[in-house]
């Protein structure tokens, strides 16, 4: 295959220009979805870990079941359940909502496990000492236990958040117009691979900074045994 043909099908400026708005729109959806998933997943997961620290047996049973199931199921299966199966029991949602909810639940499960491991790693004497100085349970959690637990959890948390935000591409399977879906349909409309290249570059533009941020936190909060 000669160079001109290669340039024509992979780096076609005319087609790139035509589909640029679509790809950019898709990138915006990817970023938006990634941000909301990261926020809801982190908040929900941390709340679950703190609830688990209350050590209420029946509650913990449910939290552990939830965390185990969501860590064992492939995210794409959860998305498909929400999007294709739930409408049969009169719960319909948009592709965005289904992807957001599924990825948030999966992220929350991992966050809960990581934070719980962090909380457990703080010696019991710490919270006992805090309680005996007169702090309430919540205060000792907020001011004594969690700050010590956080250091240990930053690196694994960042890695998990990165992995999940990358999974936003799975939304394309249920027709969410994020960057992959838009570049794929632009590819079939134009019969040219240029939009696919643009989509890949779009993903790199979004996720390379995120990966570098992950590297930075890994060295900044290095695991200390």
């Amino acid at each position, binding site marked *: 295959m000669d160079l001109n043909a290669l340039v024509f099908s992979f780096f076609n400026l005319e087609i790139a220009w035509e589909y640029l708005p679509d790809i950019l729109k898709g990138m915006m959806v990817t970023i938006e979805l990634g941000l909301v998933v990261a926020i809801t997943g982190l908040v929900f997961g941390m709340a679950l870990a703190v609830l688990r620290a209350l050590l209420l047996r029946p509650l913990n049973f449910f939290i552990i079941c939830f965390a185990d199931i969501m860590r064992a199921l492939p995210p794409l299966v959860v998305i498909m359940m929400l999007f294709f199966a739930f409408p049969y029991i009169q719960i319909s949602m948009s592709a965005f909502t289904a992807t957001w909810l599924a990825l948030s639940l999966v992220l929350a499960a991992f966050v809960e496990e990581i934070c719980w*491991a962090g909380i457990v*790693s703080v010696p019991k004497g710490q919270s006992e000492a805090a309680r005996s100085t007169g702090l309430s349970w919540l205060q000792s959690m907020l001011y004594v236990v969690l700050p010590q637990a956080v250091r240990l959890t930053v690196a694994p948390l960042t890695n998990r958040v990165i992995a999940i935000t990358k999974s936003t591409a799975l939304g394309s399977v249920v027709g969410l117009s994020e960057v992959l879906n838009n570049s794929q349909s632009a590819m079939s409309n134009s019969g040219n691979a240029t939009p696919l290249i643009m989509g890949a570059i779009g993903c790199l533009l979004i996720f390379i900074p995120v990966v570098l941020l992950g590297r930075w936190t890994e060295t900044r909060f290095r695991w200390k045994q």
Partner: protein
Amino acid sequence: MDEILKNFFNISIYIEVAPFLLRGLLNTLLLSALVIPFGLAAGLLVGVLSITLKNRWARALLAIYIDVFRALPPLVLLIFIYYGTPFLGWELPKLLAIVIGFMLNNSSYYGEIFRAGLESVPNGQIEAARSTGLSATQTLIHIQIPQATRNVMPDLISNTIEVIKLTTLASAVAMPELLRVARDAQSLFYNPSPIVLAAIFYLLLLWPLVRILSRFEHKKMGGGH
């Protein structure tokens, strides 16, 4: 309640689709058995390269390789390879596209894990091995890699679980693995029970691994409970 039973846990449909889903499960297992060794081997190579390469340019290239494939969502990579290569004039078989995509993605993940493991082996071990007369290669094979592997076992298990979950992405290129078969059955029966059954299969397959991993991780964080 009746509606949930009829649509999610429909026993007669379960019985009817079970043979197909089991075949899908077998494909999922075969696919995992194919991509995990390739990923591990490529990852080990990347890990060894990242501790042995001394040349600045080679190191920079390797770092770029690792970060690019950590930043590209695996589904984007898979779609790119599967739908992009025909424009080059090659019709890649599905399985080959999947194996290549997964290998590129996994080599960077497993690579980072092996690098961390190799770095965790104390220098004294290497010096001692060399002074007993082992060559550098022998030291690597008999001293460094076995210890490194043991040190990062939890991360290796965790990533392997992720790889098994990632095989669901193959459904996006119409590979008849468990999720794809379940989706097809759902449209055939106009009932989402097959998807629920597939989710149950995934749980049965992955839950034990998730449990084992949890135990490892709590040990690693030095949990006192």
